[in-house]
């Protein structure tokens, strides 16, 4: 519950930090919140503890891969939802590339969010500037990856809309 309040505050802060009249999160997904309603969550990675891993020592010719990296072609597969999933999964790479102002994950995110090519340089500047404010919030580092991704998604959407 506390984390939800923090997220809500951050999202509000996100929107205020982005100098835009953003209402994207209200209707971007037809009233759905993809992180809540479409089950978007960060990838779950294998346990790297040695004891657990020893049992797998000689058996990794494919056996560990399928359960952790498969994707369905089922529900929640619209372009914007694919973008939301990408931002959530790749958040660690994205926050670094936002900080650097370039990178292939950042580029893929902008393409997925259909950010006009001509507008992308300005959008990247805006994302960088606005997300720096978001990341500077005291509680931001403690948020779950999905929550951080949600904040980045809306900052990006606002930046692309404006640029």
């Amino acid at each position, binding site marked *: 519950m506390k984390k939800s309040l923090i997220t809500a505050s951050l999202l509000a802060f996100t929107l205020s930090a982005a100098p835009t009249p953003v209402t994207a999160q209200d209707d971007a997904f037809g009233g759905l919140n993809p992180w809540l309603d479409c089950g978007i969550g960060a990838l779950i990675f*294998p346990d790297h503890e040695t004891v657990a891993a020893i049992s797998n020592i000689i058996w*990794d010719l494919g056996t560990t*891969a*399928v359960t952790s990296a*498969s994707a369905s072609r089922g529900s929640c597969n619209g372009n914007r939802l694919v973008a939301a999933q990408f931002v959530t999964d790749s958040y660690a790479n994205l926050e670094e590339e936002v900080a650097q102002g370039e990178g*292939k*994950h950042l580029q*893929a995110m902008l393409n997925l969010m259909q950010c006009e090519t001509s507008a992308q340089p300005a959008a990247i500047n805006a994302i960088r500037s606005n997300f720096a404010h978001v990341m500077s919030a005291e509680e931001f*580092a403690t948020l779950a990856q999905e929550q951080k991704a949600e904040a980045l998604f809306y900052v990006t959407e606002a930046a692309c809309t404006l640029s």
Partner: protein
Amino acid sequence: MRMLFGFTLSVTFLASFNTFAADVDLAKVSQQQDWRNLLHIPRHSNRSEIENQAFFLADNGRNDAEAELRATLALFQQEHVDNNDHPQCIYPARFFWLQQQGLLVDVERARCTDFSEWAEVAKLESSSLIFADGFLGNPASFYGHLLLKNNTQADEFGSELLNNSMNFGAAVSDDENPIVYILKGLFGGYQATYSASHFYRYNLNYAEAELRDLWNYELNISVEQAYLLAAHNWELLNTAYTYYFTHRNCAYHLGRTLELVTDQPMMPAHEPFVFPIAVVNRIFNNTINGEPAVRSVRHVESRQSRFRRKFLQLSNSEQHVARRWVETEGDSESDFLELNQSSRIRVLDVLADYYEFQLSQQRNDSNLKQRKNEVLVARMQLPAGAEAFVPANAIPPHQGVGGSMLQPRLIHNSELGAGVDLTYRIAYYDMLTPNAGKAPDSALSMGELGVRWHQDTGLELAKLWAVNIESLNINPTGLPGDGGRAWILRAGWQRNYVSAAGDDLQTFLRGGIGKAWQFGSTRLYTMLDGQLTGGDDLGNKFAIMPRVGFTYEFERSKVQCETRFIQANRTNSWAYTCDARAIHGSNWDMRIGIAHEDYTEGYLGVTVYW
């Protein structure tokens, strides 16, 4: 869902189809290797390796390539309300190939939007075989893994992250008992399937989380062949197989799929062990359309490799500031501010990699999350643009040796005299094996069998190591959490030919931990091992063995020497060993070595890899 699966053909329908086949020798077409490859029927067999009947359109399609061809041709001409459920859309590779053979040329093409979007047909350009290498820091990842990736035109930077990729693996429940897991993996207890996902997810899983370097072998294929492969991959998403860890694994089945485009076969039918590295070597040495099968090889570094490479390129002062930042948890502003802007950016970029590398091992560490956040916020205060680091220059795995080896040696033992021995290793490598495609400073062997002959003893089993894993786990950066304890785990049966306590075959279990350091091409290590045995002639059943040693590499040679003190429950002794790889080629090396405990022996041997 693909509603077509489960369809069967009526006799009436097949009969009506016979008129179509009148001027085409369908029996001959069905025996073409391409058609058999599409059905995954191996050479020298008439039975498909795909086990689920739902994949086949004829009742006897698994065992009868011609019946499956006739059934396929018949269904492809059917009208269908929903285009994506049309047989052409479920078997796009079959349809494409049959059209290439001059069949079905007048048949209207279905609009297969699901497949077209999945394969990004409009932009499809080529395919890649992706090799994920082994990594001893994560023992689940020792042997490597393979993927197939669709490649689209590289006109959009970052687009490859969103290309679809194929994975093959056994379906294992998350809470599987480890013993059951091993047994079922060995003896066919799991069903295996293909799965597909955007490449970025595999990159996250393997390179970012499991810290495995990826190698992208782009195939030298035409756009039409890229389409055929992608279309066949789409078909394979609804196939099932019995999984055998040793020989019917990802390497085998992806290798079989590649035979759709290669000039020469990739996979012999009866190989007892199939390793990913062998498939990489085979594709690299194969041809497609008479040209080399691989167009380019690209290295995708793991998070750890990337962090290490960049850290080691920092200047001394930059490394000092990075270390201070980590030691003081970011509270070393004065050091940081002494750097110029360019150096600050370099340090912060490396620190971001470092903290994310740490987080990949400790996902819920809130302190690490906070530290990384601080680094990124500091980075955002500086101008955009990545600072240049020199790209990685690692040796690609196809330049390494094969996974299995045979090693004959000539021996002279001060007690037993001259002799010979022969060692066979199913997989994978030892401390002296050439480095390409393997974790550095490590050994990993499974099923290492040695026999030896001396005149006095005759031919006898010298050793059978069930498992031997060693890792020096060196920390090249000096930062906390990068590398750590060296360790060894070895178990099986062996004789000790240099001990006066007898050379009976002993069951043993040995484990140890220690620490290693790197100085240029030299690694120093110290270990404390413990060993349990079945008991020697002097009554020794357990021992503590502190040891120190070094490895040194120069050009194509490598040497490892160590001394250890063996404090057993009844006796103690000193032992010395020195082993060297004198030289190596693409699939062989020459070894020389000496060992001394109570007796002394030396050897000269040749290792052949495949």
